[in-house]
């Protein structure tokens, strides 16, 4: 009985990737929330996810909060004249009827002052603040440093 319960938990752990869950807030759906493992807590972490606006009104992601970092903020990687920089983004537009991604090489959550190293296989919560829709908390999967994204079978495309 005990063994059976244990194996059930294992199965659950193996198949339940939080990143692949869809979280709904009004007309918005959020999915594929992931981050990369860090070496120690001194380096900044990163946050990637996808937001779909199924409604008829534009919205915008205006802030993020997480117990995983003392100073989380929105950034946008910009390559200008071949040189990459990461200016602070006041807001990430989420236009009506579109899907916007915080993704490698573009908008991302920059998690500065990590409270602890992000370890592969762990998860942490991030609260997303939208201009119109309000707030919602999603669970972020920490993938390997080499990861290029979560492996969701039906990656919401």
């Amino acid at each position, binding site marked *: 009985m005990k063994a059976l319960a244990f194996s059930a938990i294992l199965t659950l752990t193996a198949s339940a990737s939080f990143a692949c869950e869809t979280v709904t807030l009004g007309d918005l759906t959020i999915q594929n929330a992931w981050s990369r493992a860090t070496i120690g807590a001194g*380096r900044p972490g990163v946050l990637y996810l996808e937001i779909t606006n199924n409604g008829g009104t534009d919205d915008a992601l205006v802030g993020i909060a997480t117990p995983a970092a003392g100073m989380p903020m929105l950034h946008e990687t910009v*390559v200008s004249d*071949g040189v*990459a*920089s990461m200016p602070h983004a006041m807001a990430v537009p989420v236009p009506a009827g579109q899907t916007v991604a915080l*993704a*490698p090489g573009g908008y991302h959550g920059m998690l500065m002052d990590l409270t602890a190293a992000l370890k592969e296989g762990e998860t942490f919560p991030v609260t997303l603040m939208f201009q119109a829709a309000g707030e919602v908390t999603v669970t972020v999967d920490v993938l390997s440093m080499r990861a290029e994204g979560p492996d969701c079978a039906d990656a919401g495309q």
Partner: protein
Amino acid sequence: MRGRRTVILGLGGVAGATAYMLGLGWWQSRSREGAGPALLPLPVAEMAFSLTDHRGNRVTPADWVGQPTLAFFGFTWCPDVCPTTLSDISLWLDELGADADRLNVVFITVDPERDTGPVLSDYLASFDPRITGIAGPVAEVERAVAGFRARFEKVPRDGGDYTMNHTAGVFLFDADGRFASIIDYHEDRRFALPKIRRVLG
């Protein structure tokens, strides 16, 4: 891989604007590259620097002549561009298999104050073992960057912290050390493997 090309999914003004922006970055760096021979990276043999790899070996340009080179500038405190590019490079090396053993693959830090040999060693353990980390005194890194006609800049942040802006393209040189091409950061990744195969000969 998927994420890079889907910064904004769907159709409409924002997607168009983003595509334009990304395209512009690509175009600017290409036009700069093509603006005159003076702006092309020097042949490796004409470069001058003395750096140290993450295994503790001294590295000079002469060490690179005789094998094709793939080089990328970055720093280990970089959460977005650098792990993404090193992950891409690792995937390319996977796909090239044993052919890539002939390639000199180097990750040159533009933040040698924090990225010492042991730090690079720790960091690169997450990526393909054929990637060699390169560090050294700031002045020598500057000489290397100058030879590549690349750029970097230290950007202070609140609280005494800082980040680095840096050339994000991946440089390719043939076995004779002649500059062959750049894989631009926002370029379609499908063009990368053919470019690398060309310098492998």
